[in-house]
């Protein structure tokens, strides 16, 4: 015990003998090991408090300590908590309740009954979690995909159209088996939708860029467009600039339940194509009907 005995008892150095006794009793009652079975920290505190009291309650030792002649070490220690060892062992039953029988019989009977009931009650199986990657097109149109579980079972997973990353599909009864006739748990499948290089989801609509030739952009007319729903014939309006949007109704995310199908949004992008001498010659000789500045709208403050 190297700590300051005054500090341990919470006393000033000029504390009276009565104050020392009172401080010791207060702490000893709180930390006595026989009153605190199962709390080793109480025993350590009690030992420190006792040693501090032994030193300070002896006027001779206290004087020598105060003058620095001895330190707080080397104090004789009484072995505390002698009763606890007996009382926790079988012979402790000697001092059980006077009326015979444990005062906790009813409590333990209840605990056993609750445990027995819990063991035999039908218990549902655990839910099992899995992850599944879904292609962009499958997530858009919906599909049914087989999925192999780690335990060898194969599940048929129906992917509804419009599913998004982070959604969880629950397959009832495909998780862990139940006990005592309880229902099996569910398989929870977390979905990750993969990116697509050409397509982008905007809610239930799908956005896609549509490259068109200069001639198609100026003259318009029917063009054939490959889409996730197959090749479609689209009539371009004449004089379509880059950036013009064409909406193909119902060709986006497929309809599902109450949700109607989304649209496919085509954004035109004019492609000049490889060098062509005839086009060069035509444009050189061409004088536009109106000389409109395409950059007129670009108006920066000077």
């Amino acid at each position, binding site marked *: 015990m190297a700590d300051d005995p005054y500090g341990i008892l919470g006393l000033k150095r000029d504390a009276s003998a009565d104050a020392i006794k009172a401080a010791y*009793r207060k702490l*000893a*009652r709180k930390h*006595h090991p*026989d*009153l605190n*079975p*199962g709390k080793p920290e109480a025993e350590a505190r009690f030992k420190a408090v006792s040693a501090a009291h032994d030193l300070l309650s002896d006027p001779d030792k206290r004087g020598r300590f105060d003058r620095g002649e001895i330190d707080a070490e080397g104090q004789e220690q009484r072995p505390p908590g*002698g*009763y606890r*060892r*007996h*009382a*926790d062992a*079988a*012979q*402790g*039953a*000697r*001092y*059980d*309740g*006077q009326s015979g029988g*444990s*005062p*906790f019989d009813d409590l*333990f009977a209840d*605990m*056993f009954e609750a*445990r*027995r009931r819990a*063991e035999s009650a039908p218990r549902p199986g655990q839910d099992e979690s899995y992850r599944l990657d879904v292609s962009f097109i499958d997530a858009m149109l919906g599909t049914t995909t087989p999925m192999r579980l780690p335990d060898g079972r194969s599940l048929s997973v129906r992917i509804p159209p419009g599913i998004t990353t982070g959604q969880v599909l629950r397959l009832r009864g495909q998780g862990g088996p139940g006990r005592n006739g309880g229902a099996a748990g569910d398989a929870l499948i977390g979905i990750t939708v993969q990116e697509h290089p050409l397509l982008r989801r905007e809610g239930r609509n799908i956005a896609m860029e549509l490259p068109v030739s200069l001639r198609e952009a100026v003259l318009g007319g029917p063009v054939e467009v490959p889409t996730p729903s197959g090749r479609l014939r689209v009539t371009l309006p004449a004089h379509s600039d880059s950036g013009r949007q064409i909406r193909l109704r119902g060709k986006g995310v497929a309809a599902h339940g109450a949700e109607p199908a989304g649209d496919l949004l085509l954004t035109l992008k004019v492609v000049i194509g490889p060098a062509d001498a005839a086009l060069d010659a035509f444009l050189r000789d061409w004088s536009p009907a109106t000389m409109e500045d395409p950059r007129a709208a670009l108006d920066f403050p000077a």
Partner: protein
Amino acid sequence: MITPDILVARFPGLELGQLQEWIAEGMLRAEPGPSFTEIDVARIALIMELRDELALDDAALPVVLSLLDQLYALRRELATLRCTPPPP
């Protein structure tokens, strides 16, 4: 065999009359004879410590002992329960 005389010799300040008083109040138990066991010796030490060192008075002492007896009974029951598998 631990007799009352041995106890009186072992604990300075303990008198036969006090011993009989504790037995009469149910705070201490004795075998016919009377004789005592090791747990009784430890209990006397505890009673004297609670009374003399911790200054519990005569009214508080039996209350504290009764609560302690219940506490230790519960601890022993729990220890048994931990080792016993639940009934089928």
